[in-house]
């Protein structure tokens, strides 16, 4: 005889603690990347939060829909974040996206101008060091543009801003490198440019 069984819903399959951690990161304005860098062990590993989101995308889509947000997987597939549904606060949101993009673009441009591949920006043992930060701060243009993008204190503040949102990692005093999310932006620019040039 079959036992009467209450229907399992998707919430039962998901580790509530992990889900709460994901929520906490999202409301802090962070993105959740596919790979996470462990600064203690100095190595990349798969991000369990991303895996959970990815494996239960339906569940999380609904969950965030119910609390008035939208779960977004970036088109590169590298990271998730949430945004509010509806237009309220869209200005602040665009401001953040813009600030992140300006910082990433300036870093990318600085790197390619100094003859380095953008890939080096994403390597934990290379990335940006103190000499780069000095060079960026002493450039005639970058500090002005950063200021116009509302970074009053120059490149340090800018790097901390993208770090706090997981577009970069900080590996030491004045040492940063881009996360896969940060890199995704530069790659997107490159492919957009390539596509435009081919057409």
């Amino acid at each position, binding site marked *: 005889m079959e036992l009467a069984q209450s229907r399992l819903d998707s919430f039962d399959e998901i580790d509530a603690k992990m889900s709460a951690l994901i929520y906490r990161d999202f409301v802090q*304005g962070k993105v959740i990347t596919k790979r996470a860098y462990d600064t203690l062990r100095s190595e990349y590993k798969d991000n369990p939060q991303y895996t959970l989101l990815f494996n239960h995308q339906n569940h999380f889509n609904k969950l965030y829909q119910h609390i008035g947000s939208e779960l977004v997987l970036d088109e590169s597939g590298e990271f998730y974040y949430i945004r509010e549904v509806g237009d309220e606060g869209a200005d602040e949101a665009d401001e953040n*996206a813009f600030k992140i993009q300006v910082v990433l673009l300036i870093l990318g441009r600085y790197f390619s*101008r100094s*003859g380095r591949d953008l890939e080096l920006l994403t390597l934990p043992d290379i990335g940006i060091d103190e000499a780069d930060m000095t060079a960026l701060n002493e450039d005639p243009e970058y500090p002005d543009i950063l200021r116009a993008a509302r970074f009053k204190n120059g490149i340090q503040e800018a790097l901390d801003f993208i770090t706090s949102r997981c*577009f970069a990692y900080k590996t030491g005093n004045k040492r940063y490198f881009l996360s896969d999310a940060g890199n995704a932006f*530069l790659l997107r620019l490159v492919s*957009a440019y390539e596509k435009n040039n081919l057409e």
Partner: protein
Amino acid sequence: MSKRFNTLETMRILLNHPQVMLDCIQNMDDRKERYIRESALIISVRRYIAPLEQDTQRRLKAVFKTENLFQSQVVADIEKKNGDKLLLFQDEVLNIFRLCNASLQQDITDTKLRSRLDSLRSVANRLEAASFLMSDPDFTELRDDLLEQLSSLLGLVRKNVSAMQNWSSKLEDLSAQSSKSPEYFLSFRQELFEKVSLIYERHIKPTWTFVNPNLRLAEGLNLFAVLNECKQRFETYGFHDIADQIFRFSMSFTNIYKPVTAVSKEVERFLRKSRKGMLESNTMEHFYQQLRTDYGQTLSHDLRKTRLERSLVKETGFAVGLKQQARPKNYRFGDSIAYTDNLFTEIELRLGDMSKNLNWLPEVGQSAAGSLAKQSLQRAEKLYLWMNEMELRPTQDLIAMLHYRLLDFLPHYQFSDLLTASIRLSHEFAGHNRNTMNLVNTNKHVRIAFEEQSYVYRRRRLEAVEIEPTEKQSWN
């Protein structure tokens, strides 16, 4: 009559002082010529012998005399052109020097390989009609020709491959240079790209296809198929030693395939990388110029325009909508005795507040006379006096507790007034006036929202001091 040397002696001296010939060959290759100019040879010899002893100088001068070189058959032919003599050296002589210096290796070109393969094919065709009789000179010559062709081809390919293997360091040098001079970076990269791709397309790739056993050629059999055919023919007629020899040649060619593949891959990766690097550089420049145009607009005469236009966001749509979000407020209902005690104390305290005759802020009309700063100072002053009379309870967050207590009671209440007043209140705690309570300043900052503004303040904790019951007294 000047001194002459025989061929052996001439070669011995040339090889004892190889630098002269190496320079000349380098010069010849650079000009893409098949001959060495007599004038260039003389200059090279003079430069070389200058620091040497008189005796050696004389000997070298005699050896490098054109007549001597020609007589000793080191030079095969002499041509005259524009008043200069062009010396056509014997290929064997040049090859000995090329062997001594890998960088003088002439790259095998596509055409060269094709002609070699063609001649191998023709040998294979002639074998078809050959008599395979040792007494037939046509056959023995054909056999010797085949083996000679194979050994020279193998030597040629092998020398080239070893030169190719030095390419990786060459590539490194080239790319290191490009990162050193950012101003000429773009043009440099372009030039580098062209150079490398030419060598890759014309030399490395043909060699690679030549020794690739799996490749099918449109114009006929590939190298290994030709070798296999020859081998089978010799086997059929019982020439097993020659068949074996051909088989060993084909094995050697197969062995070359691997290192050439490695070189080919390396160069291909380098080309991709430098192409990628160029693409990246152009991309960054393109979008940065957009950003710069936007920035230029903020410098215009329009005073309101201080922010950058967000055209980048509109174009890429990257991370749009990302922001910090407010977390839901939580109500901490509890059912412990301590919780209900606290609740009742709070209610009592608030009732106490209400029963006091609050001489709150000046009327709006009255206060309008003073400046805003003065007003707020007055309000803070009053608030402080009043707070001094309030009964307080131990709490994790003094400011929040006062805020919520005052919020509903005071008209025109401002959070900033509370902050000002509480700073003064905390001084008082430091002076031990209210010695039943300890005010602890924490390092934690808390957010509080009030009238659509968000305030951040430092949390202050109020703790009850453990005292003897006899000493217990009310604080005021």
